[in-house]
């Protein structure tokens, strides 16, 4: 019997047809939809007079454009409002389940999938959003697609695809105190680069990955795309099962027993061959901070802004110089002395309850530095917000001087009103530090929730453990 990787198994289980032309037809179990990448797909379906293949596989939610200010029940920006209304209309026209803006379950699409039990091990999950890789944390094959493919899935429940190669990244050993899932994934991206995973499906394994909570695993898989791979995944285990059990969309009763039994097979066989394998010692990972305009431009907290003149590759050197100019940084500056203007805690990378707890531990009993103009905490969903409030986390944040907001993508990509002004510098728990990502001219440093909270208190980067 041939030995298979987890990815091989997920692929094989969803293979509808291998075409002689070299492509495969892959079946999609779950289709998540948001307002930004779907209107043209719904329109295409409508214009071609085609039907949804299986509406019950689909769940929609507005997240990118929604305002997060607590007092705004309506969307002021007419262009954003039209996009959200278009999702409403399309969902009611085609009969798609939607957690609309006034639904208490509304939130970031990649937060609500797992939260509702919509995301299950062994599934194929797609969404017109590159951070769909998040759901791989449950042992699912989950990846982002473009709008043409969104329409394809709506009409056929399938995708025309070619198989990726297998990569395994093992993080062995144990993390040091104060080092989090975000630091693990940022250090992986620093090591393999933003194109290191291109063409691969990545399985994360090893003692460190196993030790992470489901929230931490989602953070790691979420940023797989930042390493160039469309899909990241982790084998399901008891933690996965415990997380899912009892959630609204999770199977119940006898069906639950059958599902759990089947999930035990979702593991790479001993001796399965990976095209590429990377081993990292977890004990060597330090808290991470990005200094540039690509997630691979990342250093340990204790290090300084790197010097482009030390880089041999001329294209890379030029990229580093441009990044430093954009970021307004000088080579050799210690990261801990970089002053900050804003702090953003949120996004599909880090807005789950555990992320908020991690930040609240640091913020508790302290005050946001007067040098910080604004410190936002944006929970990932209405239910995360509710739970945080039941635990009193909102009081911790509000008392410290953070703004406690409503759920949404918010300042991760600044499609709503939450954005940086030119040259403003932000410690952000999001996933991309691209030029202009958080607002034109804005300067983003990607960090963990604990680091972001510590930076808010100190006004500059500092080891959360030192506070």
């Amino acid at each position, binding site marked *: 019997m041939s030995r298979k990787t987890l990815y091989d198994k997920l692929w094989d289980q969803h293979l509808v*047809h291998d075409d002689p032309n070299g492509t495969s037809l892959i079946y999609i179990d779950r289709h998540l939809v948001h307002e*930004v990448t779907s209107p043209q797909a719904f329109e295409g379906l409508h214009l071609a007079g085609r039907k949804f293949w299986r509406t019950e596989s689909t769940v929609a939610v507005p997240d990118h454009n929604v305002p997060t200010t607590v007092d705004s029940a309506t969307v002021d920006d007419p262009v954003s409002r039209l996009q959200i209304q278009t999702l409403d209309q399309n969902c009611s026209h085609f009969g798609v389940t939607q957690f609309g803006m006034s639904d208490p379950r509304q939130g970031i699409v990649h937060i609500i999938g797992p939260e509702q039990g919509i995301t*299950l091990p062994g599934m194929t999950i797609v969404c017109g959003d590159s951070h769909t890789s998040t759901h791989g944390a449950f042992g699912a094959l989950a990846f982002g697609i*473009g709008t043409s493919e969104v329409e394809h899935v709506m009409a056929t429940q399938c995708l025309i695809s070619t198989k990726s190669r297998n990569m395994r990244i093992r993080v062995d050993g144990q993390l040091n105190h104060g080092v989090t899932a975000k630091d693990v994934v940022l250090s992986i991206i620093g090591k393999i680069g933003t194109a290191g995973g291109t063409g691969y499906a990545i399985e994360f394994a090893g003692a460190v990955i196993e030790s992470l909570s489901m929230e931490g695993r989602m953070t790691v898989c979420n940023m797989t795309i930042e390493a*160039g791979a469309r899909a990241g995944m982790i084998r399901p285990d008891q933690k996965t099962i415990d997380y899912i059990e009892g959630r609204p969309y999770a199977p119940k009763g006898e069906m639950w027993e059958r599902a759990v039994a089947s999930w035990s097979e979702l593991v790479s066989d001993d001796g399965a061959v990976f095209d590429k394998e990377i081993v990292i010692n977890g004990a060597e990972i330090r808290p991470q901070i990005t200094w540039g305009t690509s997630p691979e431009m990342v250093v340990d907290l204790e290090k300084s802004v790197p010097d482009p003149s030390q880089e041999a590759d001329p294209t890379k050197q*030029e990229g580093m110089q*441009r990044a430093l100019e954009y970021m307004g940084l000088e080579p050799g500056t210690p990261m801990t002395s970089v002053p900050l203007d804003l702090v953003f805690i949120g996004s599909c990378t880090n807005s789950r309850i555990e992320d908020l707890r991690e930040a609240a531990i640091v913020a508790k009993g302290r005050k946001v530095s007067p040098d910080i103009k604004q410190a936002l905490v944006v929970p990932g969903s209405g239910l995360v917000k509710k739970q945080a409030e039941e635990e009193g986390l909102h009081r911790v944040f509000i008392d410290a001087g953070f703004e406690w907001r409503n759920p949404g993508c918010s300042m991760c*990509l600044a499609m709503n009103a939450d954005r940086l002004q030119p040259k403003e510098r932000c410690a952000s728990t999001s996933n991309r530090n691209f030029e202009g990502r958080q607002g034109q001219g804005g300067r983003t440093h990607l960090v963990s929730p604990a680091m972001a909270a510590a930076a808010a208190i100190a006004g500059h980067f500092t080891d959360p453990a030192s506070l």
Partner: protein
Amino acid sequence: MKKFNIHEGIVLPLDRANVDTDAIIPKQFLKSIKRTGFGPNLFDEWRYLDHGEPDQDNSSRPLNPGFVLNQPRYEGASILLARDNFGCGSSREHAPWALLDYGFRCIIAPSFADIFFNNCFKNGILPIVLDIEIVDSLFSRIEESPGFSMRVDLPEQNIIVLDDQSVIDFDIDGFQKDALLQGLDDIGMTLAKADLIRSYEEKRRNITPWLFS
């Protein structure tokens, strides 16, 4: 799907690696519910000196003279020469829509991000991967010769540099080549396999019924 066969045009060099989809089309323009009209906002933050918003008259905005797209010698360019990992970042198909709307039909780079690469084919844009040495030499040749143009021949899988008629061969996946040549309708093709999809569903409904409830 838009067809691609043979295309001839001026080559515009974008000499930076890791050009992400946020740079190709910034987020504020993603609020549109249409597939067209993104061309004037392609590379908006590099191209203009001010901040752009949807529904704005772009003709009166101050241009960044330092950005390659604004240099007169590249006016009317329809082939983009780029660096490694072009199109990284988000899955937004607005990125190829913007490139197409501006007039780009072919993008050449040493490597592309997966989702962007795939999205190009869905929109009649041909992304070509060439060895870094060839890309390097093209960058320097463009520098030397204003109006540098190429003829991209998909059926023959080669590029002809019009200056000296030199030929560069390229590889492409057979299915993607056919899809571009014929302008295939992916959805129609898959729906032709509806019976296969139904029998797959039948089988899986027995094995994993909770995925169908």
